[in-house]
């Protein structure tokens, strides 16, 4: 067994155990209906988390994604409702704006040598502020394209619905996994996270890769914003506040190291599902107050980082013993 897969396997095992325990208590959780809603309800978080996985593997962080989701929602809503553009045109404009935004952050991080934390924090203020400048109110989106897309779904056996946005999230995860593990760009991202200096000496185009990573993250956040606007049929400047923390949490729970250089896109998927499970469980229980979500997610984060430390300490010892054996 590949030792580097251990944290990922641990995450999967914990998810399965937690899910089994939840199903044991509430048999209703084991239905395609719940599973379908899992995917639909967490689609925007999942898409954001894919971008965040790349950023974190490269050793950076992107605090602006929640604000980009909010900004995208408002921009798309205003373009459709006030300017009468077709949603697809609005999506293209929003994605282009997000790409520029991400590129600007990547350029600032690389050329100004300012930590990603601060640059993306400024980006968060800018995107959130920009959204509030466009409008202060929730802008409804009434377009037949929206209602068509929102009502697209495959009927699963057992009455569940696999919605378009749920499928889109899965597609983004597959795309992310292929890019991370099967392309040159993906190897560059891992190399940057391992050690920027040695990556640059090995010929990795650090500037270009950094810019591309933050463009990817912002564009995926923008896509998440589009999904969020499909989900709510409106744009609101204060939408998705704090989603960056959920995304970072999902990535960390998925076994990616915040120091960079190590992680799996699939792990992030399990992380998102685990966060979704906590919320669904609390809804199913009905007696637990909403603040328990935060406490449980905090405890989960804590358990996973301690687990990672133990696994990595154990595998470091294992490497040594396997050499002597």
């Amino acid at each position, binding site marked *: 067994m590949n030792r580097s897969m251990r944290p990922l396997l641990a995450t999967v095992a914990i998810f399965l155990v937690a899910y089994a325990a939840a199903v044991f208590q509430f048999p209703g959780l084991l239905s395609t209906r719940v599973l379908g809603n899992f995917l639909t309800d967490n689609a925007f978080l999942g898409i954001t988390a894919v971008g965040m996985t790349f950023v974190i593997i490269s050793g950076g962080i992107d605090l602006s994604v929640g604000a980009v989701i909010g900004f995208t929602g408002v921009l798309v809503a205003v373009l459709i409702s006030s300017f009468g553009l077709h949603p697809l045109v609005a999506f293209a404009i929003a994605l282009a704006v997000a790409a520029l935004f991400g590129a600007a952050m990547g350029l600032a991080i690389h050329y100004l040598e300012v*930590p990603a*934390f601060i640059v993306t924090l400024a980006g968060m*203020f*800018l995107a959130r502020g920009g959204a509030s400048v466009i409008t202060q109110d929730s802008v409804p989106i009434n377009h037949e394209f929206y209602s068509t897309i929102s009502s697209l779904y495959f009927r699963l056996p057992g009455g569940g619905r696999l919605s378009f946005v749920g499928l889109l999230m899965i597609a983004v995860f597959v795309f992310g996994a292929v890019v991370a593990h099967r392309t040159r760009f993906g190897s560059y991202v891992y190399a940057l996270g391992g050690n920027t200096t040695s990556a640059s000496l090995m010929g990795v185009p650090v500037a270009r890769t950094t810019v591309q990573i933050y463009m990817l993250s912002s564009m995926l956040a923008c896509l998440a914003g589009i999904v969020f606007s499909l989900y709510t049929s409106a744009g609101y400047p204060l939408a998705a506040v704090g989603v960056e923390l959920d995304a970072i949490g999902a990535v960390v729970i998925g076994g990616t190291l915040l120091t960079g250089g190590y992680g799996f896109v699939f792990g992030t998927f399990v992380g998102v599902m685990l966060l979704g499970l906590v919320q669904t469980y609390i809804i199913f229980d009905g007696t637990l107050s909403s*603040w328990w979500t935060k406490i449980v997610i905090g405890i989960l984060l804590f358990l996973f980082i301690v687990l990672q430390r133990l696994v990595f300490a154990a595998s470091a010892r294992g490497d040594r013993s396997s050499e002597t054996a």
Partner: protein
Amino acid sequence: MTRISFGRIFNTQTIALVSVLLLNWILFPGFFKIEWQDGRLFGSLIDVLNRGAPVAILAIGMTAVIATKGVDLSVGAVMAMSGAVAATLVVAGYSGPVAVGGALAVGLACGLWNGVLVAMLDIQPIIATLVLMVAGRGIAQLITEGSIVTFSDPTLIFIGTGSFLGMPMPVVIAFALMVLVTLVVRKTAIGLFIEAVGVNRSAATLAGIRSRLLLLTVYSVSGICAAIAGIIVAGDIRGADANNAGLWLELDAILAAVIGGTSLLGGRFSIPMSVIGALIIQAMNTGILVSGYPPEFNLVVKAGIITVILMIQSPLAGQVLGFFGRKKSGASR
């Protein structure tokens, strides 16, 4: 390693603060007007100090944490928790000083928790404190049971809204704390130890610095600072709002430290400059409010000013300046 000499008064931060204040004065001519009423000072300038005090207090602890190459994301949640504990204690019939003590104890406990994760378990600070940032607000809501706990305890209200020698109490507390912590780190070797751990922790440990104890102390100080800020904010609104108290203030505090020239890579810090950084942030906020601009521009302007300050401080700007013959000082203090 380039260092900005701290002895000079005319550095980037004070110039930025003065320019923001002058800009406010141009946009709102009454900005510098200060009045004496009912035994205390009133005016926009005092308001900047008063409203900036909680972030300044957070920034004091945050600066020490960042100087050890760490970061404390949990301060906003700790503010919410300490405020919730103080409010719940006085509502339960305990006296004001007991409530303050309880809140400070919560801050200390949170700081120790973060410190143990960072120093003993060697977990990255950003993720170690993320745990408490996420869970802490939930715990605060658990303490207040989801409602805003209001109180009328004179001690807590005095801390939030009282005055001492004409200055608002939060300003007095922030100033005293700044002087105290600055003296402790600059008049003893502790500041040097903090910088040593921030630059290279293993080297510092090998040189005989008890880095674990130092990290524990630094995170505890940050927790206590957050608790003080939490009491002030709760006292100010005469209630503990677990949802909104200290929300996103950790970001403002980190920003204040960075604007103040503290390096996020550890090893270089200045507590008074971070306090000035907090005042710059607050002066921008107040300026936008008093000058009658719509408050939604607040964040955009903030992002713009941060970008400008970061560009001035960046190594690239140093090179460009060096190109024009004004070499940035490479000397240490």
